[in-house]
């Protein structure tokens, strides 16, 4: 089981993690492939310069090419690191009590939202397109009560399995919640009584 204190910023007593989900690896792979393709640009520029015949490693063209390529690769590496960080910090957590959505939107924007499992109303799985069908990933939309906002688990692997796990956890939470309510009531008050005026005051 995952270390709860490391992964949740405010763990509750008796809470444990059921699912700890990142985006599907193919999303990160596609991003890495994009940067690998871009990494060939300075190589192509070098061959164009050499074919023109006026490239000199010791001269101005050499200096500009080296410094330009160096900056290009540094920023490429920075953006790739950003993608890795984004993938690593975007996480959806399902515990036995709540769902938590953590998204690193950009460098200065981070979204953390959570909802009790009993507040969930309906869950929708959206997996459309060629690659999502092939690699079995998609979005899970969770409609919660009392709010227009929906929880969206984006581009996660095997969304149907996730939905089953969440609905199962929600059902268990409801049963536990009802049992706790029953146990909290004193024995003589376990039977519902008609509400009196004094109780309302």
């Amino acid at each position, binding site marked *: 089981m995952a270390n709860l204190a490391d992964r949740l910023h405010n763990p509750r007593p008796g809470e444990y993690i059921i699912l700890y989900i990142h985006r599907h690896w193919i999303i990160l792979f596609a991003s890495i492939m994009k940067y690998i393709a871009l990494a060939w640009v300075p190589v192509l520029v070098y061959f164009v310069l050499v074919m023109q015949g006026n490239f000199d490693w010791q001269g101005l063209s050499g200096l500009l090419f080296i410094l330009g390529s160096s900056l290009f690769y540094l920023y490429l590496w920075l953006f790739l690191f950003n993608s890795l*960080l984004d993938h690593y910090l975007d996480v959806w957590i399902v515990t036995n009590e709540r769902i938590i959505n953590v998204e690193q939107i950009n460098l200065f924007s981070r979204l953390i939202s959570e909802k009790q499992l009993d507040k969930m109303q309906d869950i929708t799985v959206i997996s459309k397109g060629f690659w999502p069908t092939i690699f079995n990933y998609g979005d899970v939309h969770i409609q919660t009560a009392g709010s227009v906002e929906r929880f969206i688990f984006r581009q996660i692997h095997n969304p149907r399995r996730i939905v089953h796990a969440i609905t199962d956890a929600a059902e268990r939470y409801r049963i536990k919640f009802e049992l706790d309510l029953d146990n909290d009531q004193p024995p003589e008050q376990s039977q519902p009584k008609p509400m009196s005026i004094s109780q309302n005051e």
Partner: protein
Amino acid sequence: MSIQFTFFLGVYFVGFLFFFIVSLLNIYHLFKYAKGALGSKILLFSYSIVTIGLLALTAFLIKDIDLRQSLILFENNSFDFSQF
């Protein structure tokens, strides 16, 4: 009018400075939200190694270039493209 080669080194330094600041912000995020996790350590280590490697390679490639040279932009009111 002429520009010394060190000017381009200055432009590179400004670009690198911005890269460095954004990198520090990224590392700050990594430490703040994923402190102690193995994945964050691997990310940070690989980031440092590749960045240092790129800078070392750049320094190695420009070490033989005489930076005291100058680029003559205009001479007799004409731009000399042959210098490129």
